[in-house]
C-alpha cells in the first residue's frame, strides 16, 4: 500500500490512497485493461455546461435543445429561487408509494406540519411557539424531459418571535433532471418514485426533521451526496468555461485545497484565478465546438492549474485534497454544499448532480 502511495504522489495524484489509486489509474488506464476506481466507474467524458445536447454522450439524446436555448430567459426567471442560496445536497433511494396527486401532497403537508409541531415541543426549532406549517407543491420548471419525475418543492413556513409575518423556515426540492427511463426494475416501477437528489436549505435541526419524516414515510434512505476530489476536479474543469458567452463580470474561479494534518498551522489553501485567465486556459485545452468534455482534457486542465501554482510558490497542490471548488456558475463543497450563482445554469448543474447520484444508485443494477 505504502509503496503505491509514494509512487502515486511522486508521479501525479492526491494525498489519500483512494484518490491516488484513482488518479493513477486514470493516467495509466491506457496501459492496463483493469481500472481500480474505488467506488464506482466514472465515465470517460461528460457534457459541458454550455453545450447543447448531443447524441454522442453517454446518455440518450433528450430533446432539451429548445428549452435550453430559446426559452432560456423564461426558464431562468422561474429558476431564480435556486440561486444565491446555500443548499445541502442529499441523495435518496427510491421513495415507496409516493404520489404527486394534489390531494396527497396536501395530506403530506398536514402530516409534516404535525411532525414539525411535535419536534417543536421537544426542542425549539421554530424560534417562537408558533408552529411551522408545511406545504408540498409541484415545481414544473425543473421537469426537463419526459422521463423526469415531477419535481416537488417542500416549504415550511413559520412566524418568528420578532416578525409579524410568516417567513420561510425551510426550502427543499426533490428532483431529478434528465434522467434515464430504465433506472428502476420495470416490475416494481409503479410502487416507487425515484428522485436522485434532494436540495435543502434550512437549519440542521429542521433538516433532520424533514429527513427523518421522509425516511419513515416513504421507506427510503437519505444520505449526504459527498463529492470526492475527482468529482470536484471534473466540475471545475467542465464549468470554468461555462461563462464563455455570458457578458457580466464573472466571479473568480476558486479551488480550495485541504492541507494534510501533518502540516501544522495551515489548514487550507485557497487558490483563486481570474475567470478570464481561466477561460483562456480552458479554450486552449478544449475545442469550443465540441460539447463533450473528455477525461483527458479534465486531467490536463487540473494539471496545468496545479503546475502554475507550483511554478509560483513551489507547493505541490496535487498532493492535497480538493475540498471546495467555485466557478461563476456555482460553488460546491465536498460535504454536499452547493450555491448556485447563475440562473441559466441551474438545470445544467442539477443535471450533473443527478448524474452523480444516479452513478451511486447504478451499483444496484
Amino acid at each position, binding site marked *: 500500500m505504502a509503496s503505491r502511495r509514494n509512487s502515486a504522489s511522486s508521479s501525479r495524484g492526491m494525498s489519500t490512497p483512494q484518490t491516488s489509486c484513482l488518479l493513477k489509474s486514470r493516467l495509466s488506464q491506457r496501459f492496463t485493461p483493469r481500472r481500480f476506481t474505488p467506488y464506482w466507474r466514472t465515465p470517460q467524458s461528460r457534457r459541458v455546461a454550455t453545450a447543447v445536447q448531443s447524441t454522442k454522450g453517454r446518455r440518450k439524446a433528450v430533446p432539451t435543445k429548445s428549452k435550453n436555448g430559446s426559452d432560456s430567459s423564461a426558464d431562468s426567471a422561474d429558476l431564480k429561487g435556486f440561486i444565491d442560496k446555500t443548499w445541502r445536497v442529499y441523495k435518496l*433511494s427510491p421513495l*415507496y*408509494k409516493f404520489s404527486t396527486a394534489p390531494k396527497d401532497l396536501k395530506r403530506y403537508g398536514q402530516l409534516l406540519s*404535525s411532525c414539525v409541531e411535535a419536534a417543536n415541543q421537544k426542542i425549539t426549532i421554530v424560534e417562537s411557539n408558533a408552529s411551522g406549517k408545511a406545504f408540498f407543491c409541484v415545481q414544473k420548471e425543473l421537469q426537463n424531459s419526459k422521463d423526469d419525475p415531477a419535481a416537488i418543492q417542500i416549504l415550511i413556513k413559520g412566524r418568528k418571535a420578532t416578525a409579524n409575518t410568516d417567513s420561510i423556515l425551510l426550502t427543499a426540492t426533490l428532483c431529478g433532471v434528465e434522467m434515464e427511463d430504465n433506472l428502476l426494475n420495470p416490475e*416494481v416501477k409503479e410502487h*416507487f418514485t425515484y428522485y436522485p437528489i434532494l436540495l435543502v436549505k434550512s437549519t440542521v435541526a429542521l433538516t433532520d426533521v424533514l429527513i427523518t419524516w421522509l425516511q419513515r414515510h416513504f*421507506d427510503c434512505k437519505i*444520505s449526504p451526496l459527498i463529492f470526492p476530489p475527482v468529482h470536484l476536479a471534473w466540475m471545475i474543469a467542465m464549468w470554468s468555461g461555462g461563462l464563455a458567452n455570458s457578458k457580466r463580470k464573472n466571479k473568480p474561479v476558486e479551488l480550495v485545497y485541504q492541507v494534510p494534518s501533518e502540516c501544522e498551522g495551515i489548514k487550507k489553501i485557497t487558490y483563486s484565478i481570474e475567470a478570464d485567465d481561466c477561460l483562456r486556459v480552458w479554450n486552449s485545452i478544449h475545442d469550443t465546438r465540441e460539447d463533450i468534455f473528455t477525461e483527458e482534457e479534465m486531467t490536463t486542465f487540473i494539471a496545468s492549474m496545479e503546475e502554475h501554482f507550483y511554478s509560483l510558490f513551489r507547493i505541490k497542490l496535487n498532493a492535497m485534497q480538493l475540498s471546495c471548488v467555485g466557478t461563476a456558475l456555482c460553488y460546491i463543497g465536498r460535504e454536499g454544499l452547493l450555491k448556485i450563482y447563475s440562473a441559466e445554469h441551474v438545470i445544467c448543474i442539477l443535471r450533473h448532480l443527478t448524474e452523480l447520484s444516479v452513478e451511486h444508485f447504478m451499483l444496484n*443494477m
Partner: protein
Amino acid sequence: MSSAVEDKNIKDAIEYFVKEEKIKKKGNVQLSLALKTIDDVSRIKGLSAEDIISLIGVAASGCHGNDISCKLIKCLIPASVFPVRAVELAISYMCTSIPSNKVQAMLLRLLIAVFDYIEKKNVFQKLGYLLFYFIENTMLTPYICHLLSLLTRREDVRLFRVRRLLELQTKLGSQPYIIGLLSTYKLYFPNLVSIVIPSTRKQFFPTRDRQWCSLIREVQDQNQAADTAHMKSSLELSEKLRATESSIMHGPAKRRKVDPIPVIHCSSSKLTVKLSSRLAAMLEERPIPFVQIPDIGTLLRNPVNVELPSQIGAALRSPLFQCFMSYCADLPMTCRFSYWLQDTLCQELLDSTITPACFPRIESILEKLIEFSEFIQEGIPVVDQVLFLYLHVWNGLDFRPQVFRLVTRCRLYPFSVLNENILEPLRKLFVRTSVFIKCQVIMSLTQLLRNYATVEIPRYHQKSSEAKPRVCVFEDTAEVLDPLSTVQELIHFLDRLCTVGLTLENNHSLLLHFTLNFTEWVSESYVRYGLPFVYLPSRHITKAFLSDNALGPARLCGVTQSYKRNCQLLREDISSNKIESPHFNQKDTVHSLNILILDLCDTLWRKKAFTHGRIDSYFYFEPGHVDIEANDGLSLYLHQAFLPFSVLFLKETQPQENIGHPMGIKEYRVLFAEFLQREHIDEIRNFILNTFMRYRKSISD
C-alpha cells in the same frame, strides 16, 4: 338479615332516591339510612344491573346535589357486570350541561374503575369518543385521557385529535396523561405522532381510586359465579397492549439516533386511515399491523392480512419479520429492502469519514446482516455489490471476520466478475499479510465453494429448469452463466493460491492444514456434492507429504483415497449414461491420479522412492543424482513424520535395553500400520488396504 329483607331494603332505598322530588339534606334520617343501605349492600355483594341503571340516572342528573350524587356514584359497584345502558346514560348526561364538573369527573372515575367489567365494550368504544370534546376542560382532562387511552381503537386515531392534544400540551405544559394518550395513538400510528415518549415514565395514569378499584375487584371475586369469559379476554387485551407499550417505550430511544437500522413500527406505508380502510375496519377486515403480532403462530394464522412495517429495513432487527420475509416475500418488499440496504451500507462502509468510534455500530449492522443472510440461506445481491466496491478499498483489518463471512455468502457470478471483484482484492491481501490472514482467506474461499456446491448451484438449476416463480427471497438479475466452470476456475484459483502461500510461508503447518481442508473438499466434489468433474491438485500436494507432521502424509493418503472413489463413481456414472461431463478428461485424470497413488506406494511401502523409473513421478530424479540408499528414507517407518511413532512402536515391542533401529520395522510393516491406526492415524492403513494389498494380490494371482 335474610336476603329477602335485604332485597326489600335496597329496593326501598333506591325507590327513595328515584321517587323523591326534593331531598332535605340536613338531619334527614331517611336519607342517611338509604345511603347506608346502598353502601352496605354494594360493598358486600354489589348491585344488580337494574339497580345500577336506576341509580346512575339519579346520580348523573345531579338532581339531589353534588354530594349525594358523588356518594351514590361511589356505591355503584357491579355485582357481576356493569350494564352498558348505565354507560350510555352516564355519557348522555355528561353531554348535557346538567351535572356539575365534579359529578362529571366522578362519573369518569367510575367508568375507569369499572372498565374491565363493562358488558358490551364495543358499544362503549363507539360512544367513548364523544368525551373527546370535554378534553379542554382542565378538571376532566386527566380522566378523559385515561379513559380514552383504554378505549382507543385504530380508527379513532385521527390527525385533528393529535393536533388538538399537541395544542393542549403547549397550553398546559407536558402532562403525563396527555403523553399517555399520545403514546397510545403512537402505538397505532407512529407517523402521526412524532413526539418522543420519554422512556423513564412508566405510569402515565396513576390511579387515585386504588381503594375503590380494589373494592370492586373484591366484590367481583366473591361473585365468581358470574360468567367472566368476556372480562378475561378484555383483561388479556389490556395486558397485551401494556406489554407492547412498554416494549416500545423501552425501545432504543437513544440508540436510534446513531443506529441506522430503523425500529419496527406498525404504521403502514399508507399514511392515514382512508375512508375505505375505515369501512374495512368496520367490517373487521383490517390488516394487522406487524408490531402487534406477538409470535410466529399468529403470523402463520393469517399471513395475508399482515400490514408491513413502514420501514422494511427494520427486518434486520426482528427475527419474526425475517421469518415473514422468507415466507412470503414479494418483489416490492425485497426492492424496498435492497434500496435501503444499499444506501445504508454505502454510507457506513464507503464513506471516507468513518472513525473508529463508528466501528461497533457498523460491526453490529454487519453481524445482523450476516445473521439474516444465514437465516434465509442465500446471499443478498446488493450486499455483494457493495462488498465488491468495499474490497477494493479495504485495508484488510476493519471488520475482517464479518467481511470474510459475507464473502462466503456470495452469489454465483461468471468467474471473470468474481475474479475481478472478490478474488483479486483478496489475492492482494493474501500475498502481503501474515500467515493467519492467509489461512482465513483460504478458509473463507473454501466455504464459498461449499456454499456454491450446496446452495447456489442447486438453486441455479432449479431456477433455470422449472421456471418456478420464486426460488429465493432476493431475485438476482437472471444471468446466464455456467456454474460449473465458475466453480472449476475458483478451485483452480484457490489451488494456485495455496501453492503461492505455502511457498511464501515456508510450508507453515497451519496453512498446510487449511490447504488440506480445501483439497479434501475438492476430492469429494462428485461423491458428496454431485459436481461432475475431478480436479487434481497441483504439485504443492507433495509439500503435505514431506511435512514433518504425521497428519500431512496421512491426510494425503486419505485425500488420494477419496479422489479414487470420486473418479470411480464418476466413471461408472458416465459409462452408464447417468450424467454427462464435458469437463471430465478421463484419461488424463486417471493417469495423474495413478501417478500419485504409485508414488505414495513406492515411497511409503515399496522402498522404491527414487528407483521406480517412472519419469512423470513427483519424485523423479536423474539416475545418479540420488543415492540408492535414500530409497528407504521416505518409508513409513523412516519418514520424518513417523519416526516418533516408530520409536514408540519399538519401545513397546522390543526389550527395553535394546530397542533397535527403526529400520528393523521393515519386515513388520503391516503390524506398524495397525499400530498407527491405534494411534488414530487411520488413513495410512486404509490406503494400504485398499490399494496395495489388492495390488499385491493381483500380482500374486
